[in-house]
């Protein structure tokens, strides 16, 4: 049942497709983290005083916190004083008004990655708020969105233009002191996206942000805030790739979602940051805090993620189901290959009556990858008739990888129904044999089986993303089955 060994090793040794480096001048702060750096970041972004104070309070909290050690991941200690906390492309000095003013090198970078902004604008009807390192460079379809009353802009712009909205919702889902990495982000977040959908509005297009990490030794600290007002709907797409580099890079993002009465937010992620080479050198540390707050009645938040990149993923997109009848969903595919490590999962906190949640998690481990699902389902005493269904499956390829499941189920209401099931097995030899006996090559057979394994998650992704996700998965796992 084996691909010939030579073929396997050839495939295993293929290099990261999106790995290259664009040489652009950087406006960079000196390494280190202290109050002065935070003041510098804040002043560079021309922030009001309250924003600075908010950052400083977060920094104060962060200094008193220990770095969490409970995740099933291993990495050398991070020297937070050796990192740079601010870096912006030079072009920011005279911010571009249109695509023509954008540094051509930057545009080229996107093109290499297959993210042609113009094409995407025309073909897919997707507005792109592309974040190159720290400062938003380009935003499209502003007018069309503005007509619908939708606010979709960089975080810095939102702080300047819509301070009331930002003040009202910032930190209301993920407080400054929520956890170590969220506190760090709150202190030094560089930029990100802000979305506000006004009441009874269906966002006319899917919103999308492509993040890239580019400058050497620069942690990227994105902050995303999506607010869906009563009766509104928005689908938000987040995707990322990063150039190949040998030094580990820290990424500690925070994403906050707020859904008010009858609102729905669909948040999809395809993550393909540099995972490090075969020996585990380099690669991104992806320590992300993502949480959605179903604040209103009948609200719904749905997380879908395809995680194929990063050396280490530490990420638990969660839903706080406060509103009556609110719904939380989590669909995830996480792949670890070579020496990648992932500790990911979700939390569903049921507080309101008739709240429902679904968790579908598919973990794939290959090479020497370690993949852990860590999830919490909590039914509070107040959550009458709450319902949860959880399924987490792991697929193992190779005898040096690991798959782990750490689900926590806490039920405090006697009307709740909670189900959890998990399975772990290697890729079925019978299925492989069946496919190969019908003339399908082993590589294609593996792809077919893996795609079938992940189908439940992929069908939740918007179409363009689903295609990209499948491609990514196939590339990531090439040669994983021997």
């Amino acid at each position, binding site marked *: 049942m084996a691909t010939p060994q030579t073929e396997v090793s050839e495939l295993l040794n293929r290099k990261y497709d999106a790995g290259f480096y664009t040489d652009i001048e950087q406006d960079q702060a000196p390494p280190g983290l202290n109050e002065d750096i935070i003041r510098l970041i804040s002043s560079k972004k021309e922030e009001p005083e309250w924003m600075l104070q908010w950052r400083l309070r977060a920094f104060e909290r962060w200094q008193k916190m220990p770095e969490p050690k*409970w995740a099933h991941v291993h990495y050398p200690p991070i020297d937070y004083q050796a990192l740079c906390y601010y870096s912006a492309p030079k072009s920011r000095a005279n911010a571009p008004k249109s695509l023509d003013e954008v540094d051509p090198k930057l545009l080229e970078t996107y093109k290499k990655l297959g993210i042609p902004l113009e094409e995407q604008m025309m073909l897919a009807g997707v507005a792109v708020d592309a974040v190159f390192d720290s400062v938003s460079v380009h935003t499209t379809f502003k007018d069309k969105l503005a007509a619908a009353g939708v606010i979709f802009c960089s975080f810095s712009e939102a702080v300047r233009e819509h301070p009331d909205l930002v003040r009202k919702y910032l930190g209301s889902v993920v407080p400054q002191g929520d956890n170590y990495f969220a506190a760090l982000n709150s202190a030094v977040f560089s930029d990100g996206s802000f979305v506000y959908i006004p009441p009874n509005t269906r966002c006319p297009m899917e919103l999308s942000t492509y993040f890239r990490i580019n400058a050497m030794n620069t942690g990227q600290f994105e902050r995303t805030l999506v607010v869906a007002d009563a009766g509104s709907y928005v689908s938000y797409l987040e995707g990322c790739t990063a150039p190949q580099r040998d030094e580990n890079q820290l990424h500690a993002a925070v994403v906050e979602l707020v859904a008010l009465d009858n609102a729905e937010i669909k948040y999809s992620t395809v993550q393909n940051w540099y995972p490090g080479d075969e020996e585990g050198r380099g690669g991104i540390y992806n320590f992300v805090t993502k949480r959605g707050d179903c604040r209103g009645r009948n609200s719904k938040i749905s997380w879908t993620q395809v995680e194929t990149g990063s050396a280490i993923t530490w990420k638990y997109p969660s839903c706080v189901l406060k509103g009556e009848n609110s719904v939380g969903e989590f669909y995830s595919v996480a792949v670890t290959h070579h020496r990648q490590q992932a500790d990911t999962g979700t939390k569903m906190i049921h507080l309101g009556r008739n709240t429902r949640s679904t968790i579908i998690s598919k973990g794939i481990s290959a090479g020497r990858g370690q993949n852990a699902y860590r999830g919490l389902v909590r*039914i509070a*005493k107040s959550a009458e008739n709450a319902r949860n269904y959880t399924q987490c499956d*792991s697929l*193992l*390829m*190779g*005898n*040096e*990888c*690991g*798959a*782990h*499941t*750490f*689900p*926590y*189920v*806490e*039920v*405090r*209401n*006697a*009307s*709740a*129904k*909670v*189900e*959890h*099931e*998990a*399975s*772990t*097995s*290697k890729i079925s030899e019978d299925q492989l044999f069946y496919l190969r006996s019908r003339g399908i090559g082993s590589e294609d057979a593996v792809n077919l089986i893996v795609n079938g394994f992940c189908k439940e998650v992929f069908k939740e992704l918007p179409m363009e993303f689903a295609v990209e996700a499948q491609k990514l998965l196939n590339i990531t796992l090439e040669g994983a089955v021997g």
Partner: protein
Amino acid sequence: MGLMESLARDLGGGGESGGVQAARAAAFQLALAQGVPSPRHEDWRYTDLGGLSGQEFRTAAAATLDGQTLPLRELDAWRLVFVNGRFAPAQSDLTSLPPGVTVRLLEEMSRQDPQWLAEHLSRQANPDARTFVALNAAAAPDGLHVELAPGTSLEKPLLVIFATIGVGTPALASPHLHVLAGRHSQLDLIELHFTAGQGATLTNAHTRVDAGDAARVAHYRAVCEGGEGSHVGSVQLNVGRDGLVENFSLVLGGRMVRVDIDGYLAHPGGELKLNGVFVADQNQHVDHHTRVDHAASHTTSDEVYKGIADGNGRGVFNGQVLVREGVEKVVATQASNNLLLSSDAEIDAKPELEIYANDLRCAHGATVGQLDDDGLFYLRSRGVPAVEARALLVYGFVQSLVESIPHAALQALVTARFAEANPALEKLLSGDYS
């Protein structure tokens, strides 16, 4: 004074040899270094011993027990009774025990083979040991060592009863049971803990089963502590090559009960079956932690736990399955089903898989739910009153598991516990529907 300090006063002495005393002291130092676990420890996340550590426990003094109060009197078995950790020959009966079985008290071992005892105690208190296992090794005043010669098969079960008699002031008992089952031997072991008397008690029990190649040991462990009795039990099961070890944990009473069951599959062909039934009502807290360690290829484990939480009770199940690197052809299944009957009750379940190999099939499931409305409706539509219908369904939830126990007296123990909560049940189970 903390739990540890109050225990320290009663350690040592007792005329034991230097080696044994040294082993006990080392075990205590280990427990002391680890400290009383708090909910900050991941392993004790859902169980707070705060209520215990405030009390000044003293090692329970020797006491006598009226044989009439002993449970499982009707069971046809070889019987050993310990009261407050000390052997009670009057209540015990080992008549016509086959020659292949050696039953010795730890106290005898301490005189006859102190080196073995010292080694045995040190083995329990290794640096990876859980705090309470180390504490047991340090404190156990007496205990039992059972050895089955190769090929010995017992046609009757061996029943070991550990009774803790409260004396008004907080009392600690530390029963210790070690079973060495030789090659191709077979044994049904029933271990029962219960409390009598007045005042708070804490039983810190440790059982270790070392099963040889192709040995089959079925270990039934019932905890029936009283309203003020707390229980911390640790069970270590080592399965031999092509051997089968079964453990059935019944927790039917106790204020705070914590049972740790560690199964170790270090030889090919080994099989482990872990089952459990627990009831937590009123203010009871019942916590099961199981760990199955697949350290060899071609090993199998199967686990089914059923829990019921009612009143202000809280049930906890944490089941860990570990498959080590380089191990192949492993099948591991686990199910934790729980019934939550009151909104003041709580169920916490954490089924864990930790897998470092690929040629295996592992699955686990956990559910928390209520009685089936359709079932209730069906029974009521046939004239069964609501209370009785409920009692039947609650018992029905655990029935299949309970009836897999091949000893009627043990089954009756469970039924009696359910009938206590729902008096209607006894009548119904006896076929009286009038």
